[in-house]
């Protein structure tokens, strides 16, 4: 039953990633089309534009949420693939703990940097 909920969470985070990453992709890559529609993305990869977004609580929240959704969705998917390839219970346990530890570390680091930039 636990696995059913973990799988359901992957479906839900999948939809949330599609929405949040969709916003990120459109903002970063469709700046020409956005400016034709009257929305100024302000050269999204430039330092000034990046800092401007970093100081905006809405963007910072969006990025941190995206990070959490992506990490869960991707690492759970990776765990599924690895579980198909190895049968040993010990290795599976090591995979679970390794992935969990990596996910927590990546989330901590990926949250620390935008929070520092937000309050600086």
């Amino acid at each position, binding site marked *: 039953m636990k696995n059913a909920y973990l799988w359901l969470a992957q*479906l839900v985070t*999948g*939809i949330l*990633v*599609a929405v949040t*990453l*969709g916003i990120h*992709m459109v903002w970063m*890559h*469709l*700046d*020409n*089309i956005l400016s034709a529609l009257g929305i100024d993305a302000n050269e999204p*990869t*430039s*330092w000034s534009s*990046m800092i401007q977004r*970093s100081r905006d609580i809405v963007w910072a929240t969006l990025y941190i949420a995206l*990070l959490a959704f*992506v990490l869960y969705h*991707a690492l759970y*998917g*990776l765990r599924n*693939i690895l579980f198909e*390839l190895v*049968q040993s219970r010990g290795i599976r346990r090591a995979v679970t703990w390794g992935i969990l530890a990596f996910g927590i570390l*990546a989330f901590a*680091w*990926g949250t620390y*940097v935008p929070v520092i*930039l937000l309050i600086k």
Partner: protein
Amino acid sequence: MREPHPKRKNYLGIMGWIWGGNYRIERYLYTLHRVTGLGILLFFLVHLCVTTFFRMQQQSWEAAMEILHNPWFKLGEYLVVLAFAYHSLNGLRLIIQELGFGMGKPAPPIYPYRDSLRKSRRWSMALVGTAALIALVFLYDFLVGG
């Protein structure tokens, strides 16, 4: 060669991603879903490093961005866009079908057999078509210099 475990004698491992038998298009959509998923994960890890380690100083950020504006990296970024367009739309199809929607009513197995996925194949085609459309919109912006 080691004898396979009796319960897993039909187990194909990664080779099964490439060829699992005479399967329909959904089997290959599945392979592509895994490959694009792993590709996006790999990009994401590099992307997370670049956008956090080079973000504290203007100089290092601009140096990193200059490297990433190289046409080969642009091509790589476009591949990530393609992978995202495919993975998200195929994922939507999987969610709809795995939760049991759009599968049609069960029917007795009389020849010629009909599988329930085939009834929703036009939806699969529509999703692939939408992914191609999104890919073209992004291609336009990449070409005009996004």
